[in-house]
């Protein structure tokens, strides 16, 4: 049974993800519990969920500057950013703070 993650998008991020503000996903078995990190999740989201241009979501292996990430309501900068180890039932919020989306 794969990890279940709740994703939320706002501030214009939803426009990149089929205009959905919320989406619960079950990650495939390639995501090993207690090992898989946010660094693995981002490209998976890009390849499987993103409906618009990838450069508006990611830059290199991380999110584009100006996109705020909250993990279970906490600033991802306090959670190790890309190194954060995904847990079952996590809620991850992506908020665009950019003007020109």
């Amino acid at each position, binding site marked *: 049974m794969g990890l279940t993650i709740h994703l939320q998008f*706002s501030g214009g991020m939803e426009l990149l993800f089929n205009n959905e503000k919320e989406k619960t996903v079950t990650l495939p078995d390639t995501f090993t519990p207690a090992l898989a990190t946010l660094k693995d999740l981002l490209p998976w989201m890009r390849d499987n969920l993103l409906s*618009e241009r990838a450069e508006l979501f990611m830059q290199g292996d991380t999110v584009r500057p100006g996109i705020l990430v909250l993990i279970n309501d906490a600033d991802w900068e306090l959670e190790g950013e890309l190194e954060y180890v995904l847990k079952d039932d996590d809620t991850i919020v992506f*908020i665009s*703070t950019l*003007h020109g989306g």
Partner: protein
Amino acid sequence: MCSIEEEIQTGDAETPSIRSRRRLVVEGLCHKCKQSPPVVDMKRVMYCKTCFKESVVYRFRGNLMRATKIADGAKALVAFSGGASSRLLLHLLSEFHEPDPSNLRKKRKFSDVLICHVDQSAVLGGEDKEAEVRRIGEKSGFPYLHIPLESIFSNDDGSDGGALVPVGFDLADTVTLKMVHRVTSTLSPVARLRRSIHGLGKMTAKEDLLHHFTMRALLNTARKEGCNVLILGDNATRMAIRILALTSKGGGFGLPIEVAGDTDWFEGLVVARPLRDVLSKEVAVYNQYTDLDTVVMPALTTAMPAKSSIDRMTEEFLVGLQRDFPMTVNTVVRTAAKVTSEHRAKTVMRCPMCGGPIQDGTNDWRSGHTVSQLLSHAPSSDTTSEALSSTSNTHPCSTSCACAPTVNPESTSTSCCTPADQPINIIPYLCYPCQNICRDAQEFGATAAKKGIDDATVILPAYVGEEITMRKGREWMKKEIEEFLIDEED
């Protein structure tokens, strides 16, 4: 004041001096209350949810209370776009406006608060989102005013204000944009607004004009409603972007007005920006923690590449820098706040297009820095003037009035009647950044006319022409009476 960081570093180095013990950081706990685990990292300071929200509210209230130019009991107009920053502004203001339950006799800062939403959908689309913006606005309990941006083409009483239309274009002469006032028009205000924006070529010029129009609509509404204060939701990140963009567009002279926490530059109105030291990240986090819903409105550069306009490119640059250097935004805003210009000098004129100050000698500077062709060419297109009928071509005044057609155009008009319908080159009357908008309009119009495209010519609201005419009138009058004046400084 700004010693939090230094003290935290002292803590990290595990050599706390007695002085800094109060601020000592406890590993794994909020830097402020040292009780709850931190959830937000702002400029390397870690807060728990409660302390974070408190710090935002504290700065907001502090900025309003410190705004000495705002008299107690003032009537306020709040600009509300529906976006994150103005949503937070509305929320904080409605809390701020609540009577203090512990001290019911305490006076409120504002007697009344009105919400003003300028509807830009005629240019940007997104009409379907207007209802949602209204719903959120009305939820606050404040009266909600919906102002369509195209209203800037109407007079205060709602009647048709006519418009300024170009009289021909000349690709070789980019320092001239001749326009004439047409009293009536077959074009609806919406069509005129679209022509103003779409009569420009570069995205930067479009964004600038849209900004000036929106500001104008807000100021008009505030004055009409008898407000003393206009409150804007500009946050620190947005201000830093604006500061850098404005500087690179040659708008440095007006910077003190843009950066001020409160400014009375706008005759009879104080413009306040209480979120000026709250980062856009903080806005987003606060809204998330408080479940404040926002509406995502399209912008001119939505989903466009970063290089599509100066503002957009500046945003990309600044936000990228801010990620690696979290003090960038604050440094830019604080540095700009120290900039002074001569914009308060008596000789400084107001720009009829943006309302900002015009630096003395802008035209001399321009002619020294630009290559301009002085050869005159035949006007290549006059299509817009035809679309706008000039039936009201009559002059209400006698021939002795300065606006009568027999008078030499160079000395026209005291402001005794509506602007004369004589073509006038508007460029010399504008501030440097607005001159650039007109040069863009001229270039774009000339190129389009050459290709036989008729409807690519810019239209401007009548007030631009009215203010130029008034200024010309004042200058003319001043010249006439100059020799009778006694110089105060003598």
